[in-house]
């Protein structure tokens, strides 16, 4: 007589375990095929708007939020539709995104990388945001872009102008509509040549952080290619407020052009100080002394007041453009808020529309599907002419505006005038350009 070791309970246990074990790979396979971070399963989808609501760029952040609200309104079918009507892609129907109502949460970047990452993380983990967008600083954009890559959500950058955002720090989940330092330089150089000639000595004052470095590198290379001599490149602390001790040495340097690679409060103060020191009336080497501000912002130009008059720079977009898209956006924004939008507002509105359109074309919120839809996407009707979202680095290539401080402004926001629209072809560079080298997109991360 043999004794069996099997009991009824033991067989059941073994069977259950074996069944679970066999089923597991199927569960994981099935799950990973469809799941991604914050897959919206209900009737709505949540977007995360991460903008500076406090800190030095709070006014730009407020304008970005206004544009985001407008974009959400248009996506959900309210308002006049804005640039949805002029956008070359006709996927968006005003019924949300893929039929889901668009909701949003906001975060405060404080223009600090750690605070921006914390608020983005909170919006992803607590609020279920499927996409993060916004910001008004390159340092912040690069930090949040890295976080979104790790978390497996799409990051649609706001106002970030450093070459590094789509250069050495580019990420597969990150996309930039705004132009960059190289493009500013490429657009400005021919205008500067026409205005000031090829025999010039340039003195650079540069904000000492990622944006300033790449802006200085770009504009110095572009002007040196014209034949200009770079007299000095001086780095100034980001926290500096009084630039007089950096301006004073310019007076005796032999330079006849001052390039202010400054943005925001730095730009307002350095430009004000430069004008105070009489640089604009100065004649050096038999030529009128000139000041150049490579990146202009209308909101910041307001702080510098009359000092911006006649000073050239570049901008991503300006409310005075006469194309259909720009006019539709200005009308929509101006009617709602009573004043025209800034370039920060324009770029984030475009980014929201581009994301929504990519989701619609992909038929999925999966970040990898969205990324694929955005890569190589060519579009028009969003205020910058024909635009390409280049697949290799996720940078938009479009026309760049060269602007000048207006001599006789008629209102608080009528501060800049467009002097030239530089075609996209002139500011396009190869994806492996040395100024953008050192990083790799990597592969898309769907998260979950």
């Amino acid at each position, binding site marked *: 007589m043999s004794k069996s070791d099997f009991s009824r309970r033991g067989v059941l246990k073994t069977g259950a375990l074996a069944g679970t074990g066999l089923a597991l790979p199927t569960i994981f396979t099935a799950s990973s095929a469809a799941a991604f971070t914050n897959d919206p399963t209900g009737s709505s989808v949540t977007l995360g708007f991460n903008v500076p609501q*406090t*800190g*030095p*760029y*709070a*006014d730009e952040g407020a304008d970005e939020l206004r544009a985001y609200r407008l974009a959400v309104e248009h996506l959900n079918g309210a308002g006049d539709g804005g640039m949805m009507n002029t956008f070359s892609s006709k996927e968006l129907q005003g019924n949300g995104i893929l039929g889901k109502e668009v909701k949003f949460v906001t975060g405060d970047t404080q223009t600090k990388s750690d605070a921006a990452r914390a608020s983005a993380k909170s919006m992803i983990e607590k609020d279920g945001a499927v996409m993060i967008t916004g910001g008004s600083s390159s340092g912040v954009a690069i930090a949040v872009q890295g976080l979104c890559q790790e978390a497996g959500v799409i990051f649609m950058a706001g106002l970030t102008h450093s070459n590094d955002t789509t250069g050495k720090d580019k990420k597969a989940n990150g996309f930039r509509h705004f132009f960059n330092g190289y493009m500013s330089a490429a657009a400005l150089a021919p205008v500067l040549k026409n205005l000031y000639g090829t025999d010039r000595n340039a003195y650079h004052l540069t904000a000492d952080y990622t944006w300033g470095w790449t802006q200085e590198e770009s504009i110095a290379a572009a002007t040196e290619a014209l034949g200009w001599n770079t007299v*000095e490149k*001086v780095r100034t*602390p980001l*926290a500096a*407020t*009084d630039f*007089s*001790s*950096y301006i*004073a*040495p310019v*007076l*005796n340097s032999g330079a006849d052009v001052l390039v202010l690679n400054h943005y925001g*409060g730095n730009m*307002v*103060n350095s430009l*004000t*100080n430069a004008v*105070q*020191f*009489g640089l604009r*009336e100065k004649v050096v080497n038999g030529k009128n002394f000139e000041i150049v501000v490579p990146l202009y912002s209308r*909101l*910041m130009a*307001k*702080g*510098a*007041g*009359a*000092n911006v008059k006649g000073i050239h720079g570049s901008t991503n977009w300006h*409310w*005075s453009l006469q194309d259909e898209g720009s006019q539709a956006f*200005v*009308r929509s924004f*101006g*009617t709602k808020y009573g*004043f*025209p939008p800034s370039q920060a507002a324009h770029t984030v509105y475009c980014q929201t529309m581009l994301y929504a359109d990519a989701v619609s074309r992909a038929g999925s919120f999966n970040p990898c599907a969205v990324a694929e839809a955005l890569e190589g996407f060519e579009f028009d009707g969003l205020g910058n002419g024909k635009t390409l979202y280049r697949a290799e680095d996720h940078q938009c290539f479009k026309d760049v505006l060269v602007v000048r401080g207006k001599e006789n402004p*008629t*209102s608080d*926001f*009528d501060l800049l005038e467009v002097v030239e629209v530089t075609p996209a072809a002139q500011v396009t560079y190869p994806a492996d350009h040395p100024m953008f080298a050192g990083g790799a997109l990597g592969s898309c991360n769907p998260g979950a």
Partner: protein
Amino acid sequence: MDAILLQILNGLDKGSAYALIALGLTLIFGTLGVVNFAHGALFMIGAFCAVTVQRILNLSYEVVDETQKDFLGNALKVKTSYVESWFGPEMGGAIIDWAVPIAIIFAIPIMIFIGFVMERGLIKHFYKREHADQILVTFGLAIVLQEVIKYFYGANPIQTASPEALSGVANVGALFGMDIVYPVWRIVYFFFSVVIIGGIFSFLQFTTFGMVVRAGMADRETVGLLGINIDRRFTIMFGIAAAVAGLAGVMYTPINSPNYHMGMDFLVLSFVVVVVGGMGSLPGAVLAGFMLGILEAFASMNEIKSILPGIDQIIIYVVAIIILLTRPRGLMGRKGVMEE
């Protein structure tokens, strides 16, 4: 040589703001024994007094001009200021142009009042507390004040120009046969600070009120025992210190467009100035203010930075460390002040 003289001028001009703020800080510390971290906020409020006066003078009414269009294509609403309407374009324009100097008249009573409210409403409750408590509460107050300003005026800098007659540059080197130009308003700022500093010293030195205050600073208890209400005088001194910081702020607005954060930008530097000058020493604060301003200007010279890269960003703190190591009381510090 030109470059050196230029940086000396620049240092004196930078030092003017440091000295004025440090003077107020020292007045408060010397009289009330309070380490006032909200002093930078008073400088900022002073600057916004100028912004407010400028806005009041620019208050305007709108007239619809059918011949011009706004950005939406509607008839343009042309603004005309009441001042220009009342006094004529020339006189009205001149009044608006002189908004910053006019703001001085308004800033003095406003700042004294703010100082009085600050001292009586909050700071007096912390006289007997530790310095750490005083620093915490005044720092908190500074944050609250700057957020209030940001709520009403926004975060971006607001341009506040100097009068046309005082803008531009003056050839200060002409006296020595050199070609050294310097902004007129910065020269005005320097002389303004000299007048204010001189006025404060004269007030303390040559008036009975000043004599009592100085006696109170030296020995508060004895002065109290003589039946003099020293607390009331010290409260007035707090108001005067607030006014000094406010005036420094008003006059600073054409130099750099004011923003809500400008007080914090000056606060740490001013404390270093006070420590280097010697806690509680008024001449020390003024001397250190100008000295550090000049050193900072020289450290920004390219010739210096090529030898010591980044020295412009740390020079003030390096000097503070050296002074504190070699002369812990600061340049002109009094024995027993901030010493256990």
